[in-house]
């Protein structure tokens, strides 16, 4: 790239300044990339040096990984089933209060997760605003796996909603209207036309939301508690193990790193194939 640039701007002050600027920019990228790569590498180096591989297969790790997989899967099902039509309404609806609603559903993005956890606890805990009534019916949510999913949905939903709504907003309405004229009903148009056209945005939103749900810590530990196999997801297991067995904490971190990597690559591959298939 440098060669082509120099070719087009062989001499002159602006060429020199450009060179400097692009050098600095490349340097900035290098610094950032190193800043991100070094800690990740350190995890792997520690695991190799301390022979912490065994800890990856420990019961704590297996239970945490299984729980994280199950809860984030449930979160994604809820987000796709409920979030997709909700995002469509957000994108298309111009009703009173739609602006306020948009702000409301984006609030969890800027709210620190621990604050979200306290909020959930005060709402759905045993003495909470809603929890009190649920408790009267014999339903308690705190310290259950359901509470973990609730925490994950709470913090991850905005990421899916936002990207899905943007995707829907970009769909050309004339295509939808043409399908309607051809006699398709609204649901069919939504499922067969709108959703496929917005598909890349939906996948992107789902991946971000899933990553957010996987990393969820603050809201989960405060609202759902911390018990192996029930509410102790990978981030909580890493935190708990750090106090007693740092090898296990490192091994879990490496495990989740690989897991996250695999899922992101798979989703990218599948979505690329889906896009190719449509064209």
């Amino acid at each position: 790239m440098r060669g082509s640039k120099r070719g087009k701007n062989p001499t002159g002050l602006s060429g020199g300044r450009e060179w400097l600027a692009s050098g600095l920019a490349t340097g900035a990228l290098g610094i950032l990339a190193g800043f991100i790569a070094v800690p990740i590498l350190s995890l792997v180096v520690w695991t190799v040096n301390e022979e912490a591989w065994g800890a990856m297969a420990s019961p704590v790790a297996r239970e945490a990984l299984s729980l994280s997989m199950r809860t984030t899967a449930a979160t994604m099902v809820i987000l796709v089933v409920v979030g997709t039509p909700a995002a469509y309404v957000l994108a298309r609806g111009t009703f009173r209060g739609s602006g306020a609603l948009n702000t409301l559903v984006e609030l969890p993005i800027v709210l620190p997760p621990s604050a979200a956890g306290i909020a959930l606890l005060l709402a759905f805990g045993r003495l909470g605003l809603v929890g009190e009534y649920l408790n009267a019916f014999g339903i308690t949510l705190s310290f259950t796996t359901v509470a973990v999913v609730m925490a994950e949905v709470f913090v991850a939903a905005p990421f899916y909603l936002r990207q899905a709504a943007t995707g829907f907003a970009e769909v050309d309405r004339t295509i939808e209207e043409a399908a309607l004229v051809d006699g398709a009903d609204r649901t069919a148009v939504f499922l067969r036309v709108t959703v496929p056209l917005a598909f890349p945005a939906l996948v992107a939103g789902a991946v971000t939301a899933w990553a957010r749900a996987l990393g969820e810590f603050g809201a989960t530990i405060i609202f759902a508690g911390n018990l192996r196999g029930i509410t102790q997801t990978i981030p909580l297991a890493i935190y708990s193990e750090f106090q007693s067995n740092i090898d296990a904490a490192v091994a879990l971190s490496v495990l989740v790193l690989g897991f996250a990597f695999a899922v992101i690559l798979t989703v990218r591959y599948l979505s690329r194939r889906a896009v190719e298939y449509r064209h």
Partner: protein
Amino acid sequence: MRLLRGKASLESCKVWSRILLLLALAIVLVGCGGSGSGGGNGGSGGSGEKQGGTLTILAASSLTDAFAELGKIFEQQNPGTTVKTSLGASSELLAQIQQGAPADVFASAAEEEMNTAVKDGLVAGKPEIFVKNREVIIVPKDNPANIKSLEDLSKPNIKLVLAAKDVPAADYAVEILGKANKVYGPNFKQDVLSNVVSREADVRASVNRVVVGDADATFGYASDYTPDIREKVKVITIPPNLNIIATYPIATLKDAKEPGLAKKWVDLVTSKEGQRVLKKWKFEPAAQ
């Protein structure tokens, strides 16, 4: 890269110079922040003459209130000094010290953590036992699970919260349950532990689970029944023959930046006045 080509070059120069300006500004700001706080430290050191400085204490979370009060006394006795107390589970604090956390004093809720610190060569001098504490059961005031004794904790469907594994308060609790097995039957400990619904970061976090009403019971220390929470919880005592006495060691750390102040803190905590404050917060004197 598109920015850097052909006609756009002049404009891109402007853009780049703006970005660089912003970067430079950011660096200057960060620099200022650093030197600013440095200046602050210097200032407090200067105002306190020879006695200035910041004393950093790592203390078991059960010491929260007592050490806050002692910190104020210390700052009055040593004008210009600042006492910074970092509270957490003793096991977590030990992990922090092992990872090189900068601190002057370590006060643990159990001898095990302190012994490890000594073994790892992290402690200067010999640790002193400065106070004792007693485990109690803490339940919400309305006591929804109707717990009246240690034995009741084995009833099914109780939501029991414990501090995390290796946190002294939880280790002591498990020890108590082991002792109680001989009295309440061989399955007692098992039954109680099967009621555990969450393991919290430290003892204060597990007590707070009872305060907000989500847990039916937890094991805490007598000193955790602070005035703040007396309206919301009550204490159920553990039979003395089954209870254990928690012993709290304190020591100055080898890498202390303020070894003089650290020594003074240990002296204060073990002095008559220090013991008076600790007793006020429901701790028991070390010499008993």
